[in-house]
């Protein structure tokens, strides 16, 4: 395996989170389109599946992926469009991880009790 440093992990996480988000996006548009069948259609039954705790934990991981992907995307934009971005890419990546955690912890604080309360 190629032993890159931070940049390699930044790329790998960006790729994995991106694929997960894109696949969930396709599923999510499909599930919302079920409202076209009307109030007596399959929408509510399908959503009951979404409300199960294993799915909600999976969804939480996708949301964590969204936060990382968004912030690392901003890092990529800085690397591509500023003169100093590449020089500080490692520091920027630690900034991305720090901000992802800083956003993630309060979100967990709100969402985990919801999930536990729903079991």
């Amino acid at each position, binding site marked *: 395996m190629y032993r890159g440093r931070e940049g390699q992990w930044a790329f790998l996480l960006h790729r994995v989170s991106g694929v997960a988000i894109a696949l969930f996006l396709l599923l999510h*548009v499909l599930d919302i*389109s079920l409202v076209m069948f009307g109030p007596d259609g399959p929408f509510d039954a399908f959503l009951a599946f979404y409300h199960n705790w294993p799915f909600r934990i999976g969804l939480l991981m996708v949301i964590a992926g969204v936060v990382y992907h968004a912030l690392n995307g901003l890092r990529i934009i800085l690397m*591509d469009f500023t003169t100093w971005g590449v020089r500080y890419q490692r520091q920027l990546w630690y900034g991305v991880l720090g901000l992802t955690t800083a956003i993630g912890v309060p979100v967990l604080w709100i969402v985990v009790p919801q999930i536990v309360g729903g079991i």
Partner: protein
Amino acid sequence: MASPRPRTYAEAREVSSSNSELGWWVFMRISGLLLVFLVFGHLWTNNIVIDPATIDYDYVASRLAQPGVRIYDTFLLFFAMLHGVNGLRYSIEDYTKRPGRRFWYKILLYTVSAIIFVLGTMTLWAFTYQEMGDAVRAIGATQ
């Protein structure tokens, strides 16, 4: 990857195999910046402000009845689908070596995405909820 990632617009222009590939390089950055705000707003509204486990038909119907939500979601759908599907295309091209397989994976990706994009747009714009109910009842009546 064969060559180092382009870091500037000029470098991207040099390494891109075509004008459209350069266009996608630029698009990923512009749409990505827009999506940061669009997606965070979407998650804030539907996952933080409310408990998503309370989402049901009535909630979605009341949201999509608002023109502002429809317009917001149209932008979200448009940019997220293009950004996401192009990202999946990058992944297929990076990890699928055999040209035949690569071709068919991409055909599959584009077909599925196009259908889902049309479904999403229909959900947002094609029907009012009254019309939807009527349409469903009409289908029920013919059976």
